[in-house]
């Protein structure tokens, strides 16, 4: 038997079963498991070669079919017949699902060709409807979100890098010679920048670019110009 398959051809074990039932011109409700089990297994072997991920469902069904087939061949008990009927019923329902899916697809396809239209009132009169009160709240939320994102954006723009902050403070102090720590810190736009500024001041103190005086003000050290 020559089987040509492509990946994802069958949605699941029921899909394969339905395919074989149709191939054998069988009615899903009159499913004869013994007639298609061997072929089912052949297909599952092929599916296993191309689609490792989805095979567990197929293998489970193959096992069930084999069990029913062997029992029917040996001594068809009422229980076994019922099991076959159950699978037949499931298969039948699945056939309906496939039909319904086709129907839905057809409706979607048709309606995608129908485009909604509307016309304008001739006099573009003032549309004085009231904007709901909750719009104020929405504006507030959006503004907050925007502020938040701006901050994130600035971080990614590297404004908070220590080297840049160091340049800024150096330039500032070369001009001013003396300033309070608070004054430098207050040039920060948010907490993160504040932390960066503080750490930079500490670093400049360590480098002796800045010195601290008795009024807790920082002053440009004498050698600061060469730093």
């Amino acid at each position, binding site marked *: 038997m020559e089987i040509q398959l492509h990946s994802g051809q069958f949605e699941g074990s029921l899909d394969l079963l339905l395919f074989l039932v149709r191939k054998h011109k069988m009615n899903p409700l009159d499913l004869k498991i013994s007639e298609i089990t061997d072929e089912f297994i052949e297909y599952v072997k092929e599916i296993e070669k191309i689609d490792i991920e989805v095979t567990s469902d197929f293998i489970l069904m193959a096992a069930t079919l084999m069990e029913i087939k062997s029992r029917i061949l040996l001594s068809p008990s009422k229980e076994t017949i019922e099991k076959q009927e159950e699978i037949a019923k499931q298969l039948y329902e*699945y056939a309906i699902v496939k*039909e319904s899916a086709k129907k839905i697809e057809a409706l979607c396809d048709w309606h*995608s060709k129908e485009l909604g239209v509307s016309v304008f009132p001739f006099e573009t009169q003032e549309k004085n409807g009231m904007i709901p009160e909750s719009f104020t709240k929405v504006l507030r939320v959006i503004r907050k979100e925007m502020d938040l994102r701006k901050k994130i954006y600035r971080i990614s723009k590297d404004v908070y890098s220590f080297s840049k902050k160091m340049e800024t403070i150096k330039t500032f102090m070369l001009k001013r010679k003396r300033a309070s720590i608070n004054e430098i810190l207050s040039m920060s736009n948010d907490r993160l920048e504040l932390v960066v500024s503080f750490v930079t001041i500490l670093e400049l103190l360590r480098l002796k670019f800045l010195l601290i005086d008795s009024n807790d003000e920082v002053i440009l050290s004498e050698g600061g110009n060469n730093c």
Partner: protein
Amino acid sequence: MKAETIAEIEALLMASHGLSISEIMSISQKKRNEILEILDKIEETYSKEDHGIELKNVAGKYSFFTKASYIEAVSKVKKRSISEMTQSQMEVLAIIAFNQPITLKEMERFRGSSSSNQARELISLGLIRRRRDKEKKGNPYVYVTTENFLKILGVSDLSSLKEEKDFENSKVSQNVRNSVKEES
């Protein structure tokens, strides 16, 4: 049925993006029956072949659409949106549509294979949504279709979909049986 009343309702429908019967009632101050008659009349007028648009009830709202047969020309002036769905997503959608509210387990029984990926995709497409079923034991998650689903199908409600294909309806089942035979 006065000509002016028909004209007024036509103007209302054209100016809006769809109105329900009760919305038309409250704006036009007409009775439901009269409105239904007028909608029938408008539908009939536009169904004629010298009109390129038609009146439809989609998801309970009446509005005008260009007729499908003119899509080629119309798509040159207005963008057509097509929702791309896979075969398995369609199957899951069909199961939910006809059996809602339905749990993931029940869906999987229908298809004989896992359906959670498809359900997730369909949620992000806005075609189904998930909620807790308070009546079932343990309040499991159940899946239902959304209004958006009716909108992409262009049908008025779920019952009109069922008319086309009912799981319990023996006549339809017969059709399915025949179609299964024909295809093979």
